[in-house]
């Protein structure tokens, strides 16, 4: 951006000074207006003037003893940014997997006592089946569900099954717990062959998304399963690893996120 290097750019001083005050509070902790004025070299009346705007916008908050502390807005900016960035990365990786595997790709997460779809991208080659963000899926009949259940401890899993009956959705649905437990013991990607819907195969691999229990699933026509299972498993496993890595790197501010409960569950994945 040095094309006009001869003329110094005109900058907005009040904005610069306001940001300077936020920086001072970030650095030193809660300070009085007088201390802020001294630290930053901004005249006291100007400091008051700027502080009023910073408090109004939620970047600073009035604390005890006439001091100014950091406000909630700053933390929420990081969350928003980190969440938006994670979401972009996740969507990019999903879209790549859709193309490479020619499969419909979805992400499932644990939300309360349910396993819920949080992201879905369809591929035209995959027969249509119902799947949308927010949809609760049956843990015993789907690959995503099985992958997530396999990683729960036995107590939580029993709790899940107590609340979610093992409905027989197709003639292939496994409804015997001992057979499901055998599936859970396999460490490879979880599979569901027409156990959820006729004509659909699905594989799922674990996503490590910093505290959120999640799985990445790829669904494709059952008729392709015998030829393509291994290849799609490989693509899926790689994509899940890349995605976990990307989300880990994109969340530089996890302390803040975990500090503010509730929003944590709304993470990108």
């Amino acid at each position: 951006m040095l094309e006009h290097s001869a003329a110094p750019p005109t900058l907005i001083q009040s904005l610069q000074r306001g940001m300077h005050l936020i920086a001072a509070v970030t650095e030193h902790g809660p300070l009085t207006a007088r201390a802020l004025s001294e630290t930053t070299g901004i005249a006291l009346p100007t400091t008051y003037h700027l502080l009023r705007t910073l408090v109004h916008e939620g970047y600073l908050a009035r604390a005890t003893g006439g001091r100014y502390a950091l406000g909630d807005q700053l933390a929420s900016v990081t969350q928003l940014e980190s969440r938006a960035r994670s979401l972009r990365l996740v969507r990019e990786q999903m879209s790549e997997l859709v193309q490479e595997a020619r499969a419909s790709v979805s992400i499932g997460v644990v939300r309360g006592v349910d396993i819920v779809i949080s992201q879905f991208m369809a591929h035209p080659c995959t027969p249509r089946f119902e799947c949308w963000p927010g949809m609760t899926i049956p843990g015993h009949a789907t690959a995503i569900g099985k992958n997530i259940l396999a990683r729960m401890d036995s107590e939580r899993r029993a709790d899940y099954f107590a609340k979610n009956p093992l409905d027989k959705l197709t003639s292939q649905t496994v409804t015997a717990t001992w057979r499901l437990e055998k599936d859970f013991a396999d460490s490879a990607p979880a599979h569901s062959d027409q156990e959820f819907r006729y004509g659909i195969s699905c594989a799922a691999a674990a996503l490590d998304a910093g505290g959120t229990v999640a799985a990445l699933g790829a669904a494709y026509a059952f008729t392709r399963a015998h030829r393509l299972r291994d290849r799609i498993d490989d693509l899926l496993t790689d994509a899940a690893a890349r995605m976990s890595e990307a989300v880990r790197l994109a969340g530089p501010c996890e302390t803040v996120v975990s500090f503010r409960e509730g929003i944590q569950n709304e993470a990108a994945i």
Partner: protein
Amino acid sequence: MVAGPEKTLVRSLQRGLQIINVVAEEGPLQAKQIARSMTLSLPTAYHLLRTLVHDSYLARLDDGGYVLGDRFRSELSELCESRPLVYAAGRG
């Protein structure tokens, strides 16, 4: 705060902070998109963006999109480390 607080606020600071919010939430954003979403004129938006980029609170990508900048980020990571301590000490 009783009599028309809006009048006593520093408008350019307020707008600058709101730009940061918008960019954090939806970035990368083009100057034009930022101007539109905040109902600012394009020159005003550029003026604010130039200041925020100059001080590294925002960064301008090659394609003209704006994202949060390094300065902001490093202060935020400091914030991450310091915030639990601030609470633990019961300050503020």
